[in-house]
């Protein structure tokens, strides 16, 4: 069986809030010096889910990314942890596409790849946090979609998913081909093995641009970004100090009581 995993490289979400900068004119984030982009957290989990299935059912896993040339490293890493093939759709302004355009390009790429039983995506990207692209792709391809999976398994010819809810989870089965978006509860992503890294450096990554896959972006966009800004949120914190920790703790309790909070 063939599994396709969509991954996205994003600016590091762990940039300290005090260092987070945007370009209001260009409406984009400006990562500080020396901070490299990383693969979006939930996409890493999607990759992990795919590899867990590969371990169990001998599937072939293809990693696909839409991004600028730097995004190739995300594919390289996916290959080193166990993906069999990699596809890089190169688009230097990929970060400026809206969810619909992104989903459109990925849909075309998936159609070109052709044979697949399961598509896995992260539940949302760690930059724009929209959480739409997975479901949009599924609708484009007219295949069933199950969102926010904490566990993905196969049952006969169906995919069996535990989908996260506020206070528990639902077990959902859908016929394949299907698309599943994956949440962090699936587990920590695995690390490359030595063999994995060596093998990955020998695998040739497929490179496409939007023309190669027939993804003409004219008229696909639906959303427009009007403004990007950093909200002011700092308050003045009163640090409670005392001779001992125990005294400070008691001070704090009294503070809260005085403010009628407790």
């Amino acid at each position, binding site marked *: 069986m063939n599994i396709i995993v969509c991954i996205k490289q994003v600016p590091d*979400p762990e940039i300290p*809030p*005090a260092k*987070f900068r945007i370009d209001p004119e260009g409406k984009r*984030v400006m990562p500080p010096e020396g901070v490299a982009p990383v693969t979006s957290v939930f996409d890493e989990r999607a990759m992990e889910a795919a590899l867990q299935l590969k371990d169990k059912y001998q599937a072939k896993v293809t990693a696909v990314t839409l991004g600028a040339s730097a995004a190739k490293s995300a594919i390289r890493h996916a290959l080193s942890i166990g993906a069999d093939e990699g596809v890089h759709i190169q688009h230097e302004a990929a970060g400026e596409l809206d*969810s619909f355009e992104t989903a459109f390009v990925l849909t075309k790429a998936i159609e070109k790849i052709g044979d697949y039983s399961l598509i896995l995506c992260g539940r*949302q990207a760690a930059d*724009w*946090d929209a*959480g*739409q692209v997975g*479901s*949009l792709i*599924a*609708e484009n391809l007219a295949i*069933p*979609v*199950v*969102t*926010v999976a904490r566990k993905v398994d196969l049952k006969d010819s169906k995919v069996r998913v535990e989908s996260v*809810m*506020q*206070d*528990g*989870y*639902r*077990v*959902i*089965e*859908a*016929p394949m081909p*299907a698309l599943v978006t994956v949440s*962090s*509860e699936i587990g*920590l992503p695995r690390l490359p093995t030595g063999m994995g890294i060596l093998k990955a450096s020998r695998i040739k990554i497929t490179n496409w641009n939007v023309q190669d896959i027939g993804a003409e972006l004219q008229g696909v966009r*639906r*959303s*427009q*970004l*009007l*403004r*990007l*800004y*950093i*909200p002011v*949120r*700092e*308050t003045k*914190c*009163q*640090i409670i100090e005392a001779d001992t*920790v*125990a005294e*400070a*703790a*008691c001070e704090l*309790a009294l503070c*809260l009581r005085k*403010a009628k909070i*407790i």
Partner: protein
Amino acid sequence: MTEFKGVMVCAEFVNGKMSPITMELLGIGRRLADDLGEELSALLIGKEAVPFSREAIAYGGERVYLVSNSPLDSYNSDAYTEAITNVCHQVNPSIVLLGQTDMGRDLAPRLAVRLGGGLAMDCIDLAIDPQTKLMLQTRPVFGGNAYAVMITPTARPQMATVRPKTMSSLERDDSRQGEVVPLEIGIESSMIKAEIIETVKEEVLGIKLEEAEIVVTGGRGIGSVEGFDILRELAGVLGGAVGATRAACDEGLTPATMQVGQTGKIVSPNLYIAVALSGAVQHLAGCSGSKHMVVINTDPDAYIFKVAEWGIVADYKTSLPPFLEKLKELSTQ
């Protein structure tokens, strides 16, 4: 050429009651409709929903569309997508609002494709631009580090999912007038591809996070599963709930249902006590609605101190026990 008019809100029901997000959606929906000079309608789905049409009107809806065929009694992604699409094709609203909830974020993107509309998820503010009359959708991005204001220039409907606890509902006014319109939507069983086999609810001991007035949250710095015991004790004494950051859940220190944050639960208690967590923006996204915040952390430079009101720079293991003792003492006074 279809004309798109009006604001439609998709209602949600939980445990036999209309969930708070619905009231909040009606509240913002009412304001948007008023600014546009158009109608606000509410879409209620399922047998459970029938008794609440009056309530939907009391909270601001002018028209209530009631869809109660049997396959729609309990939530199913395919069925609900089909049903809402159907209703929207009949009603042609210019704006469709859902909650950023299990149901809302599951349905919204699918509906956007089926209806040909544009979509912004997890909005914390919505408004009508006075000049263009377009809906301005404000949503947090980059974990909450920045806010983006988006518009859907041409695609219709303009859709948005709204973050719970960010909008205010209207005062319930039972004298408000409105129309209830029952609709028959044919859902063939062949339309339902993804079936729900079972629903597993995890036991929440004590008060639910989203409803608690006091929340005590632990981060990765708690260090062990047992470390959370003192937080549970603290929450017990204060009558609150215990939460955790995604990092703590990832490390297996607590079950994932306790996660407070951008992809976990959004809480807005009166008092939020943040213990041994650094204050990653993705976490703050879940608790920024708190009225008062207290921090206990060994690192005085942790970002969390910048958004809190009071703090102690100390290890929770040495500071929480005396804190707890003092609280117990104060509660007997």
